[in-house]
């Protein structure tokens, strides 16, 4: 069973690296943030798998914390960064 976890983990890590592309590309602030959001969710999945793979139950708590904090960045972004100057785009 271990190798299934490992393969799953690897696919997830690869999908993380694909997601990095969107953060680099943009073109909008929002796109970068969405990619970060996906990172968070993938991170949760990775941590849940690691909890089984390394039999480290505390990894689930870490996943729980990540899940709860995942949207903090989104809210902060929408209310603080994006809200202030509507027409802004950041240059790539």
């Amino acid at each position, binding site marked *: 069973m271990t190798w299934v976890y490992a393969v799953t983990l690897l696919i997830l890590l690869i999908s993380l690296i694909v997601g990095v592309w969107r953060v680099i590309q943009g073109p909008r602030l929002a796109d970068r943030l969405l990619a970060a959001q996906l990172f968070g969710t993938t991170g949760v*999945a990775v941590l849940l798998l690691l909890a089984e793979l390394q039999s480290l139950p505390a990894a689930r708590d870490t996943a729980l914390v990540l899940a709860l904090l*995942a949207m903090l960045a989104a809210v902060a972004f*929408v209310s603080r960064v994006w809200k202030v100057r509507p027409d802004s785009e950041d240059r790539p």
Partner: protein
Amino acid sequence: MTLLMILQSILLISGALMFLVGSIGLVRFPDTYTRIHALTKADNVGLGLIVIGLIPASFSVLVTLKILLIWLLVMLASALSGHLVAWEARAQQVPLKPSEGESSKETFSKRELSTKESSDEPSD
């Protein structure tokens, strides 16, 4: 390898693939709204598959409940952040497709926004 294990493997790997598809969608889709779509799909389905795949591995009810709770929270968070980003994107008149987004047809106007706000969901 029991049948359960095979089932588990299928669930886990298809969950991971779902994430990969989500990431690719995020890269390939043309505008912010459709990217939200890709994101939330991956979140809800991918993580869901992985969580269901992991349930047989955990022998305690509490652990099962905990990972289900994590899934629920992630769904809530991704729904909320997707909504917030889309909400703000519309309020700021982000065009549907930035590549040809200069035409005014494809942008929302402020007025439209205020009337439609409660009923109109983003493209997800």
